[in-house]
């Protein structure tokens, strides 16, 4: 049985956000919810400042607090290591969201895709309202609705339940890569089987010194980061007093 993992090469990642847009389209993610997200940080004091960017998603932890704490087993592990969520079992207690050390689980506070139910046109009398656009396209919200999300999880998650990244389990089941990996223009995301020592992810993890987010709390994240984007150079020096 494979054990899926992702390696994100921070040197290749340019912070374009294509992963987040692709994820949103593929998984019909509503506004306000981010299966694919980022942590940004600005360090230093002007003029010596630098901007850091770390793409984030569910870490599909080996020892997942969200799975352990879910009272109804709505949050559960697949044999291939993917942390899945079953909205039909979710009671909306939000403990997984409370318990997640990575801030990657979100709650549907209201009926999803509120924007696309709006009857307010951007230019009254000039453009169609979002609701009219949706109706012309057959009534499914949003217009970029992806029916292929169906099968392993709810196509669109209802209000009152949580949701998060599934490593695009529906695509992986069809031997396709997660869509964020597919969409990355810089090949910064590498997906594969950690149990296979010859897989690309295993090779990369053996070649570089990876780090994971909040490793110290023992959750065994399965999203690894290698290298770093920093072309800065400095003159060899021993500092001074």
């Amino acid at each position, binding site marked *: 049985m494979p054990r899926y993992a992702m390696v994100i090469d921070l040197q290749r990642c340019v912070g374009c956000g294509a992963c987040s847009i692709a994820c949103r389209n593929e998984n019909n993610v509503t506004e*306000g919810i*981010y299966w694919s*997200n*980022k*942590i*940004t940080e600005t360090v230093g004091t002007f003029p010596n400042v630098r901007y850091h960017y770390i793409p*984030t998603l569910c870490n599909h932890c080996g020892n997942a*607090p969200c799975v*352990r*704490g*879910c*009272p*109804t*087993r*709505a949050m559960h592990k697949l044999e291939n290591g993917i942390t899945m969520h079953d909205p039909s*079992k979710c*009671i*909306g*207690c*939000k*403990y997984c*969201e*409370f*318990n*997640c*050390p*990575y*801030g*990657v689980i*979100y*709650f*549907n*506070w*209201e*009926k999803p895709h509120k924007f696309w139910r709006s009857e307010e046109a951007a230019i009254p009398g000039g453009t169609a309202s979002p609701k009219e656009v949706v109706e012309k396209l057959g009534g499914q919200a949003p217009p970029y609705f992806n029916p292929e999300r169906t099968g392993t999880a709810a196509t669109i998650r209802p*209000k*009152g339940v949580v949701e998060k990244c599934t490593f695009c389990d529906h695509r992986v089941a069809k031997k396709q890569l997660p869509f964020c990996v597919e969409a990355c223009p810089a090949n910064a995301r590498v997906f594969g089987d950690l149990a296979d020592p010859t897989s690309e992810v295993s090779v990369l993890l053996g070649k570089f010194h990876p780090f994971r*987010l*909040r490793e110290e*709390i*023992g*959750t065994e994240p399965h999203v690894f980061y290698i290298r770093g984007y920093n072309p800065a150079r400095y003159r060899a020096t021993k500092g001074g007093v």
Partner: protein
Amino acid sequence: MNGNKSLYPIWLGVLGIALLAGAIAGAFIFMQGHILFNANDVLIWTLPLGVYIFLALSSSGLTLLSALPLVFGIKKYEPFAKRLVFLAIATLCGGFVSIGLELGSIFHMIYIMLSPNLSSPIWWMGAIYSVELAVLALKFWKMHTGDYHSGFSKLLGTASFVLALIAPLMIGSVFGLTESRATYFGPVMSIYCLLMAVLSGTALFILYSLVVGRVAGTASSGEYAADLYDEFTLILTYAAGIVTAFTLLKIIIESSTTIPAFLVYHKFEHLFGSIGVFGTEVILGLFLPFVLLLIPSVRGSAGGRILASALIFVGSLARHMEILLAGQSHPVGPKAEQFPQYVQYVPSIWELLVLVFALAVMLLLYTLGERYLKLNEAPTG
């Protein structure tokens, strides 16, 4: 409530309005979702959960008090046993109203039982409180039919005591087992919840007994009962003293540690304001009543007891809210991209109506119990 008959219909009217407002709020919450709450993906749990914790712990405290006569056989407390068990049931029902609206559906509460996860503290908390409610109801029925001392009745008393002991530990573990939130103090939170259960449960019993005794004249009265209220007040003083020591220790650790999570925590603006590191709710809801209870003349007067127990009872809710919110006040991980560095909270009108609904259900049950269930009854023989 036969002490003041003119007050009774007014009281029922007030409760009726509160119940109606709460029921309407519940219907809106079911239809529109939790967008009606001032919660978000940072402040995940807000007032409805705080109210549940507060009422559930108070119910556990009342059950623990009822164990004095029912489990440990201290006969002088027997005249209070039936009322204590009934108050525990009614208070827990109020808590269930609040958690039901927090979950958004009563069916969600039932579904917890159908798909159990034994590694989940939330599952254990829900299961134990559900079983506790059933055991307390059975125990009350046995007492109501005059059976205090049969083997089965005693077994029910012991079971409710054990459940009331474990349930607060489970509430504490919901927070304490969260690896990512060090500011909830790990397993220590369970001990704190147990202490708070005893404190708020005892405060509620004294407050309730004295107020109902004055207004309706149905609570246990007389010199004998006055002596026992002295003892309950002493229990309250000890409980307040232990919680005060615990709270001081907690504040000292929070103030002196350099663990990063606590450094962020320091920047949380106290919900109810503060003087230095001491939140207003700690000063007015714990330190002040404890000092009042240490003064013999205050501790011995009905007015002093009402004031101290009311401050402690209301202060308990405020302290639960403060702890609940402070631990969630800053965004975790990438959520800092969408939310400010520190998230402040003021409850929405809908959340306040959940509080009103929960309290109204609890108070209606108290009222009906006092009127129809002979809560002053003591076992014969």
